């Protein structure tokens, strides 16, 4: 159990509004992730990949069932604790809109630093360093909306990683990228994910599969192991 970072037990997520919709993208899901694993969540559009990452990333909670994080039931966590975990334990690269469009790159990268329990004094340095690593130092003062798609995705990744999270959640990180940018992003992940870092990538991109150890497929609210 100790090496299980994430465990879902009978987790169900249901979206329901009378007369409008009744969806169960996660239906009694049992799922666990070991420390250091690289996992891909595979599935067609609208099937529940984002829903799963949101539950795992503590952005939303399951309708029923349990979620254990490092052996502790997240139901016992306070709002503050969850916010703290979102800030420092998880690095979440959100689908499509991972940056605040009309903020500068600097302000976007500063967000996770600002919400730390102890604000670092050398924020500017940390931001510079993280930009230097992805070769985008010169974009520090540029507003996110002026960046190219590839640059934007790299910044989004840098933002998710700036607090050195244990678990990285990436939602379709290569979706709108060309071949060259795709390679860059996958290389980035490869470089980061050493040792104990755990990563879950929601994707329907073949390229990404080469980088992971385990592929899960979502269908009908269930998770199936597709390959290792």
């Amino acid at each position, binding site marked *: 159990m100790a090496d299980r970072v994430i465990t879902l037990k009978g987790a169900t997520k249901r979206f329901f*509004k009378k007369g409008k919709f009744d969806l169960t993208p996660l239906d009694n899901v049992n799922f666990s992730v070991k420390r250091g694993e690289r996992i891909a969540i595979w599935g067609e559009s609208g099937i529940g990949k984002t829903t799963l990452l949101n539950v795992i990333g503590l*952005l939303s909670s399951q309708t029923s069932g349990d979620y254990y994080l490092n052996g502790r039931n997240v139901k016992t966590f306070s709002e*503050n604790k969850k*916010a703290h975990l979102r800030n420092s334990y*998880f690095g979440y690269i*959100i689908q499509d809109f991972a940056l605040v469009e009309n903020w500068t790159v600097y302000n976007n990268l500063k967000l996770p630093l600002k919400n730390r329990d102890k604000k670092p004094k050398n924020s500017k340095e940390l931001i510079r360093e993280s930009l230097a690593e992805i070769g985008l130092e010169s974009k520090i003062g540029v507003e996110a909306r002026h960046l190219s798609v590839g640059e934007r995705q790299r910044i989004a990744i840098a*933002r998710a990683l700036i607090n050195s999270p244990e678990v990285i959640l990436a939602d379709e990180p290569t979706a709108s990228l060309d071949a060259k940018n795709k390679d860059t992003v996958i290389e980035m992940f490869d470089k980061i994910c050493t040792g104990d870092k755990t990563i879950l990538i929601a994707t329907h991109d073949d390229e990404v599969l080469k980088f992971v150890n385990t592929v899960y497929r979502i269908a009908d609210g269930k998770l199936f192991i597709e390959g290792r």
Partner: protein
Amino acid sequence: MLNELRLNKKVYFSVFIVEAVLLALFSALFAEVSYTNSTLSAIEEIDDTNVYVNFDCTLSEQLDSLFENDTESIKRGKELYNYVAKGRTKYSYWDYPVGTLANGKPFFQATTDKYFFDLYGIKVAVGQNLYDVTETKSGSIPVVVGADLTEKYQLHDVFEMEDPNTGKGVKYEVVGILPKGTTYPAVYNIGMKNSVDDKMFRPLDVEALNEIGNLVMSIASLVVFANNETDLRKIEQLSKDLNFLDMSFEKISDNTVIFLQEGKETMQIYALIIIALIILAVLIGGIAIYIAIKKKLNVYIVQITAGLSLKKLCLNIFFALFAVNVVLIILSLAFSALSALLSDTSAFNSYYFSSSTLNVYYYAIISLVFLFIDAIISLIPYLKLRNADLLNILRSENG
């Protein structure tokens, strides 16, 4: 907080506008309320006693004859005055415009008893109270002056002025200066207050009077505190018998009851308007913020994934609103200071403290009201989002 401000510029700007309107209305209402309040207290000061004021009906022929036989008239007048003074609480008060200006306004020479100062609690800010002085260094008559007159007369100044009743020049010495803004109830005009600012007060000593003009005034301007009506009728009768003045005392407290009632009703209406405005401000602010959060959902999701908690989000909103208030209050303070400077060069005169404490009181209240509004507005998203799945409630309305 800055990010929050930048993010919802329009929302915070509309809150700013609503609160500016609230501030303006509030200051108007506050002025009204404090006016009603002060007039109420003016009435209450004299309400529990039966106050009778002489509405004099003496004909001018009668006055002429009094002035012709002045030695005889003085004797009769003193007899009448002594009768009134014996065992009764009373004061005389009258004033004349001097005919020159002080601080751009005409000012008055007032004559009154010690009891007037005692009753209304009028005390000097600097120097000595009028009736504490028995003799001035210069040997002239002591006077205390209102704040407007300090432009002309300083403490210990000695000057000569015509006595309006005798036409003779009299030497006065300033022994004290009254605090600016001091008032006393206008007994002839219920609910109104008169200011001491534009007046100089000289003492009244009827015993020592030896001319008819001032004696007539000290009797004609009598305000008598009595417990029964017949007592007043006796005074009127004696005055007739002595062939002095045609006096007619009227009880003023009859009117005060009505005025009190009206005043309280007015204040209730103001209280209702204020409450309605606060609710309006809260609703506009709260709804605007909530809609803004929903509309800029992606920005908030990015912040939430970066570790922003709901509490922090609401605190950010609170501090953004607080910043708006601070700016608003500083602007209005600057504005009122500026207008005070422009309209009244003596604004920083040391006698001004009584009205500036009113300002402090007013800003303290408005600050509290604003803080209350801020707290409620920032609580609205908190209460709406607290028990919900952060992301889902933000993303779409689902059960």
